[in-house]
């Protein structure tokens, strides 16, 4: 035997370069996800962080000014470089100036607040070549208000109803202001409790009665019974209105108290603003805050964002109704999708004989998963709302049909959940099938050998054993359903719903109500608010919430599934 050397010493396997190229594919994919998540997380979290308030001074003879003032207070949003293309012809000389000082080709974007005073949008752009100083005076205050957005300024004094005045230099000023604002907040809560809960309840009853009255009045020839009913209902409405009286009075008294104390503060260039405390939600001195105070503020803002109602057409305030709507819709969807999906999976895995029919079913399921979401929306609109809903209305609400006020014949949370259930049923089927397959043969055969029927085996042994898998499918379906917006555009989502789908009014769960949804909230605020630049941070925050919701659901599903697979591997014999 000849002893040829079997390997070259420095052999290089063919095509290793290409392995690296394929590797970069994966690298990009992972990078893209991380990058997207990082951008959203950074921008979303940034929304809650208290940002320092700057006071920016400008040169006397420059072009930049702010409503004629040479000092601009505000939050620095970003600095950016001007491009020759974006320059307006009147600014062409900036290019010459920029030869000596590159700063002339950069500008600073500032959130100025005080929308009521300046009657402008929230932003100012200042040429950086003309900025003489940027300072962060400790006494600057940022005031969150119910109207006109935030105010930024230097507090001057508190003016009380009895003419007493407390100057900002008084050591008790901040604590007094804090007490007063807290008091106002408690009172506001009380007003909301009266107006939204108690009066809202009565108003809802009045609305119901008035719909009936409208119907009874629309009749050309009412019967005697109907005449009597009309009278009864009119009396009832009058009674309800009477009940409203004291409540209205109570809330008015509270409202009057709200604006007794006023805060005077100095905005740019000595404009003094006097702000009634009734409109102040909160205030803070970001430049004075320590790191811990900032962190505390951050978490407080996160909580506020999640738990409060939106203000000013969704552009401020919290997202609570949208979160709640998403939650209720997802739960309703799960209730609908689980039995259907599990049944189908049990049939496919346990009963069906493999053959053309099962093939067809599998193809159908895959098709159902591949049908664009918007098509489900169209189907939901055409079938659930305009066919099923119309029939329900005709049977149960003939009076509402008569006065052209559909109850179920219009978009609502029930139809939205059913539409999404139809869309997510394949997810549940696939996961359930996998879970059923993981139940070991031994368990089934043992049960059958003991004389249990097939259904008994499935019901008592197989399904419980497969329940984590079914749960996985359900969670995945919920993640998909919670994030999908396209079909909702057609079946009953609303930018600002007047009431929640679940409340203390009988019958408590209102399946016919329109609802708010987090994904739709993102869509509508990002695209359709008056100043999309101003609302962008808020949308990033909502986006972060939605993305966290979806990722947490998915991670949960993945963990359960991995656990299940390990069990499957160990159980196989």
């Amino acid at each position, binding site marked *: 035997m000849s002893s040829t050397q079997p390997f070259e010493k420095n052999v290089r*396997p063919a*095509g*290793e*370069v*290409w*392995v*690296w*190229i*394929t*590797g*970069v*594919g*994966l*690298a990009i*994919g*992972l990078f*893209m*996800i991380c990058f*997207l998540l990082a*951008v959203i997380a950074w921008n979303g979290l940034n929304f809650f962080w208290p940002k320092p308030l700057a006071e920016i001074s400008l040169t006397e003879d420059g072009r930049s000014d702010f409503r004629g003032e040479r000092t601009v207070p505000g939050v620095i949003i970003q600095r950016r470089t001007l*491009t020759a*293309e974006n320059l307006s012809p009147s600014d062409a000389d900036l290019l010459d100036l920029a030869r000596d000082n590159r700063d002339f080709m950069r500008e600073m974007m500032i959130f100025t607040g005080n929308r009521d005073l300046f009657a402008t949008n929230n932003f100012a752009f200042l040429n950086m070549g003309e900025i003489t100083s940027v300072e962060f005076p400790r006494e600057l205050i940022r005031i969150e208000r119910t109207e006109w957005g935030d105010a930024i300024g230097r507090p001057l004094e508190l003016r009380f109803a009895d003419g007493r005045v407390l100057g900002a230099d008084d050591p008790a000023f901040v604590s007094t202001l804090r007490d007063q604002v807290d008091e106002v907040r408690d009172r506001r809560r009380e007003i909301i409790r009266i107006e939204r809960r108690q009066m809202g309840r009565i108003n809802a009853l009045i609305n119901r009665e008035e719909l009936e009255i409208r119907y009874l009045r629309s009749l*050309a020839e009412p019967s005697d019974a109907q005449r009597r009913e009309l009278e009864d209902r009119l009396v009832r409405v009058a009674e309800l209105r009477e009940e409203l009286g004291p409540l209205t009075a109570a809330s008015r008294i509270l409202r009057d108290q709200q604006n007794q104390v006023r805060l005077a503060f100095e905005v740019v260039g000595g404009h003094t603003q006097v702000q009634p405390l009734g409109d102040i939600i909160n205030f803070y001195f970001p430049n004075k805050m320590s790191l811990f105070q900032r962190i505390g503020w951050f978490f407080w803002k996160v909580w506020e964002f999640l738990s409060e109602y939106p203000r000013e057409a969704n552009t401020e305030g919290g997202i609570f109704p949208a979160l709640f709507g998403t939650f209720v819709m997802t739960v309703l969807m799960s209730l609908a999708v689980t039995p259907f999906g599990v*049944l*189908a999976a049990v*049939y496919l895995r*346990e*009963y069906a004989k493999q053959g053309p029919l099962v*093939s067809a079913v599998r*193809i*159908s399921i*895959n*098709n159902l998963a*591949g*049908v*664009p979401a*918007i*098509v*489900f929306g*169209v*189907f939901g609109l*055409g079938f659930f709302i305009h066919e099923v809903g119309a029939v329900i209305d005709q049977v149960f609400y003939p009076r509402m049909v008569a006065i052209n006020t559909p109850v179920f014949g219009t978009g609502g949370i029930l139809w939205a959940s059913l539409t999404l259930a139809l869309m997510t*049923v394949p997810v549940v089927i696939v996961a359930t099938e996998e879970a059923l397959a993981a139940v070991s043969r031994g368990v089934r055969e043992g049960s059958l050998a003991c004389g249990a029927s097939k259904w008994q085996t499935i019901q008592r042994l197989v399904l419980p054993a497969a329940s984590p898998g079914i749960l996985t499918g359900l969670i*995945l379906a919920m*993640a998909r359903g919670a*994030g*999908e*917006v*396209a079909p909702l555009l*057609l079946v009953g989502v609303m930018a600002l719903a007047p009431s929640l789908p679940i409340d203390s009014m009988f019958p408590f769960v209102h399946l016919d109500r329109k609802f708010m949804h987090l994904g*739709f909230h*993102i*869509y509508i605020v*990002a*695209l359709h608010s008056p100043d999309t630049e101003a609302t962008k941070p808020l*949308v990033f925050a909502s*986006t972060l919430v*939605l*993305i966290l919701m979806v990722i947490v659901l998915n991670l949960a599903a993945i963990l359960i599934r*991995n656990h299940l697979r390990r069990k499957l591997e160990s159980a196989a014999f």
Partner: protein
Amino acid sequence: MTGLIMVGGVSIIVAVFFIFVFIAFKIMPLFRAAEVSEAQTFVVPDKGILSFGVDESRQMLYVLTEAGDLYFLPLAEEGGEVPAFTVDAGLAGDFELHSFYHDLQRDRFVLTSNDGRVQVKEIRFTQDFSGGTANPVVRPSINLLPEVRLGTENRPAFGAVYSAGDRQRLVAALQETGDGRTTVRAAILTQRRTPFGPGPLQIGAQADLLDLLSGEPKQILALGTGDGLVVAYTDGRIEFFSINAQAETRRVQGFDPFAERTGASFSRMEFILGDQTIVFFDETGYHVAWNLAFIPEEARRLFIPSKTFDDLPGPLESFAPSRRNKTFLVTSGNFARLSLLTTMATRWQANLDFDIHQAIIAPRYDALIFLDTRSRLHIKEMVDDHPIAGFTAFFARIQYEGRPGRIWDWQSDGGADFERKLSMVPLMIGTLKGTVYAMFIAVPIALLSAVYVSQFLRPSLKRVVKPTMEIMASLPSVILGFFAGMWLSPIISNAVPSVMLAVIGIFVGALITGLVWTRLPKHIRLRVPTGWEFFFVLGPALFVAFLGWQFGQVVENWLFVQYDESLGRDVGSFRMWVVQVLGWDFETRNALVVGFAMGFAVIPIIFTISEDSMSNVPNAFRSGSLALGASRWQTAMRIVIPTAAAGIFSALMIGFGRAIGETMIMVMATGNAVVQDFNPFTGMRTLSANIAVEISEAEQNGTLYRTLFLCAFILFVFTFTLNTFAELLRQWLRKRYRAVE
């Protein structure tokens, strides 16, 4: 129990097919022709009826008789005899009727007398719902405009027209001259605005077109804007004149609509709703439509030929336009046809069993009303909910009013007399465009990473990488849309060369890293554990990409920015270069942005399915190949990929299906303008985005509503075909693998 479970399983198939059938059922009416019922017949007192019309609720007729009288006749619910003429509104004493023009769109008569006077009578119906019943009480009234006397010779006038435009009102008529010729005379009506509302109409400047005419005029029409006259000559030529407030006239255009027919002579011309299109009839029943269109070269609106309709069996007897849409009813002898202008479709036609004197379309477009030569009125109820829909409207190139040339277009809203454009083609092109750009970004990344993960990645890492990709798949598209539309689009659009170079840079970086690494001595090479290459390549690749990004700005300055001496500074950018040199549009929210955002949605799908199919290639194949001395790349390339090709293909198809139907990214990351090109710097409107954008405007079961269902149907059919085919492929592949094992 078994039965119940069977039901559950089968219901899935049923559900899929039910969606299909339901949507198909919803779009069916779009393709139906008009349904016209049997006639209901009334006998009308015979007083020599010249022309008639009817009110909105079809309760009252108005007729013009040969004597020049105007009568109102109530119509009973059932057929039978129409009672006596109730309201007599005779003409002013000495007005001897010479000719009339009945404007059916506006219930208006323009009457001329033997001595050159023109009267305009507008018929008004007020509906009184106070009775409480569904049918209101109709009260007619007549609005008489000031009488106009044309010329000074008191000669008979005929063929008078009246037009009340927003800025100008015009009365015009043909009139005989002393020397046996015929001229066209026009008068401008003026109305002074007072603080208390418009003042009375007054007769202003008059014009005589005799010197401008080039033949014997037979009929005239006035443009709806009141500033133009269309004159038809007996020999079939048409001339178009403009007329201003001082009654100064100017010839704008002359044409011959019957040029294709030799020896044809003109018989009649009429406007279709909207006053943009005129249908010209010759004496044999041949008829063509010409519409006004803005001609860019001439910078003005001219008539251009637009439609040719099937010939009538004989000369035109009666013509009636609809006042709801662009249909018109023509009759000849006992033949009647309802045609739609836009698509040239015949909505309905029939040979009736009576000779038609006059036919009209009911104002609500819910009946056709015929008056026969024996003074009987036949009312045929009609159901035609979607006259403007149909195969031609959805898929063919159409010449629309106001536009030169035949085009596909989508424009669903507008006023009542607006020609709706419902072509699916631009939406399908938009869908394809979005999908192509998405696939362009997604396919390389997805396939490369699938190959890497299935063949080279360390198995322990696979357990982390696959779920990460699955999370990417679950990212709600509204988030991707927001991210792309609000964050990515300004960045990408301001730095296109940088983006391009960065993308190229990533791959160049990977290539360089690979080349360098393979040249390194073995002991260094072994420092990189197998299956970790993706991690080590990321740094260099991103570095080169960053260089590419920076270099992109240099390239932009170098190629696209120029020093402009007149301004004394640098001007230009890539964006301006695209717009001015290439002549393309440039939008901030464009196909490139969509491509990147859709990448997030499509990559994980293609990745997961193709990775599965490659991982599932029986291990014996790989082991055999490796044992025979092939490298891991050779094994992957020559053994695994060919074996799994069908699976990879099905992954691509499913990814394609997902891209086609994606809605929120398309809605948010593009401007949703209807675009029909593949320019990467403009947006698009896809079928799915179109549904999302327009459904709120659509009235239940209306034409737009059903057309949006058609969009959904097309999407469904597309994705159904793709998915079914992909699933069949995968089943076939699975069977093949099983056979090997």
